């Protein structure tokens, strides 16, 4: 019985063929784009909708390696730095808040009873609709962008951490108590360290929304940032800038996710395998 006769469900591609067929859709997409772009540009050479790769390359080269005439900044890098700074700050705040809220509600039934309903409701409120109130409270500066990101993802992280805390086998809590541990000792020594890798996982999961809120915040009011640039140049349909920016954001998102996964493996080697 050769490999070919196996049922589809039992067919497993080899490593190399997996890589090749994995790349195929990307190549296909690129080709489709190039053909469509050529077709449009043939009709209207100053069409901006689907710029050729060379146009995008030029545009990004200019933004990344030629100082802006107006400010002297390298716009592309300046945008990247600003956005990453905001994202980092927002996510960090959300992570801290989420950790504290999630840990306490997950570990202490009394705290859980008093805050879980509120947390559930808050997690349902669409943050974008509340922008005006946000502005009253924190003003319009960097704070508003960072706060929007933080508000947007804290409920998710808090609820995830809460669930993860509750998933820690109760046997461990009982065991700790038989060793004489107090509530604070259990929180700090038993639960907190075990939640840390889950926190990094939760951050990874919430980064997608983080980018979303970042872009939304930058679209509202800003002087630089990746989202700012995309919404600004949208005004004159500069797809030769928008498309590379979107690709760059995607790459950054991928890199951050990858680095966090690596970090997790590095810092918490014990967390890879199941229970104990």
């Amino acid at each position, binding site marked *: 019985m050769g490999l070919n006769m196996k049922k589809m469900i039992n067919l497993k591609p080899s490593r190399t063929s997996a890589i090749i067929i994995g790349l195929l859709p990307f190549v296909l997409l690129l080709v489709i784009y190039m053909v469509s772009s050529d077709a449009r540009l043939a009709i209207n050479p100053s069409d901006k909708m689907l710029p050729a790769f060379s146009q995008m390359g030029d545009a990004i080269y200019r933004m990344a390696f030629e100082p802006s005439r107006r400010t002297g900044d390298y716009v592309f890098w300046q945008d990247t730095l600003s956005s990453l700074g905001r994202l980092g700050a927002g996510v960090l705040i959300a992570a801290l808040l989420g950790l504290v809220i999630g840990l306490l509600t997950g570990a202490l039934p009394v705290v859980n009873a008093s805050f879980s309903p509120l947390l559930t409701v808050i997690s349902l409120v669409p943050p974008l609709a509340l922008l005006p109130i946000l502005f009253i409270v924190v003003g319009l500066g960097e704070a508003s962008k960072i706060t929007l990101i933080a508000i947007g993802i804290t409920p998710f992280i808090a609820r995830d951490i809460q669930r993860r805390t509750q998933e820690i086998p109760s046997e461990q809590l009982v065991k700790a108590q*038989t*060793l004489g541990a107090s509530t604070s000792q259990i929180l700090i020594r038993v639960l907190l360290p075990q939640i840390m890798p889950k926190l990094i996982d939760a951050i990874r999961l919430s980064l997608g929304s983080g980018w979303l809120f970042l872009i939304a915040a930058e679209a509202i009011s800003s002087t630089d940032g990746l989202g700012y640039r995309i919404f600004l140049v949208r005004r004159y349909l500069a797809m030769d800038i928008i498309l590379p920016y979107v690709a760059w954001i995607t790459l950054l998102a991928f890199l951050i996710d990858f680095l966090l996964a690596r970090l997790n493996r590095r810092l918490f080697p014990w967390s890879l395998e199941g229970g104990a």
Partner: protein
Amino acid sequence: MSQSIQTKTAVSNVKKAAVTPIIQGTNIGKSYGQDIILERVNVSVQEGEFITLVGASGCGKSTFLKMILGIETATEGELLLDGKPIPNEPGSDRGIVFQQYSVFPHMTVLENVIAAKGFQKSSITGYLFGKEKKVAKQEAAEMLAQVGLGHALNRYPHELSGGMKQRLAIAQAVICKPRILLLDEPFGALDPGIRADMHALVLDLWHKHKLTIFMVTHDLKEGFYLGTRLWVFDKLRHDPHSPNAYGASITYDLPVGHMPEPLYDEIDQQLRPITKMEQPISSME
């Protein structure tokens, strides 16, 4: 179940000792809502006994241990520790080793045991510093050498075999000097070869630290050879239409070494029955 009610009177053969028993239970019952799990359990245990508990799955052995531990409360009767009502939460006088999840996965072997020492301190975090830490470290290392983990001090639990994990859990429990050690099928997940070593370890620690041990096992042979006293949990009455109408109790309370061969076989048959029938069977359970 073919035993007659008469044979079950063995239960009441508990001798009334002059010293206060470390654990005394009178007419203990436990039910969850409508389901009666345990009923009319009467026990009296002296310090230093090694009691093994056997019985069918789900008959309430773990529940009984949990009551001693303080995480479940009897719904009827009274359970006393040293003659006083048992505390309603776990404390460091009663150590426990579960079948699983008994060690902290985020600490190395040594840290697991040092943490146990730290928890004895009434500080916020239980971290030890300076001299205190040095002393704890040395004590922990000694204890770990005693359980045969001297060579694995810096490994994480996921790098240990099942047997090594249970050794660690036991070391952790014992270093807190509990008076009572509860073992709930501690070797249930281990390879037979390793179990023999673990038996030796437990007996050794029992002697050295003068512990009172309650150990649940599903292997009668193990229970029989290990303890000084064997409890068999079973239902005294059984209603086939409503399996949870009656709870289990202790049907045999036997000093080990005094068991007649036929009784051993009878209990064994009850725990691991074999029946060869040739005729088609009808619906059951």
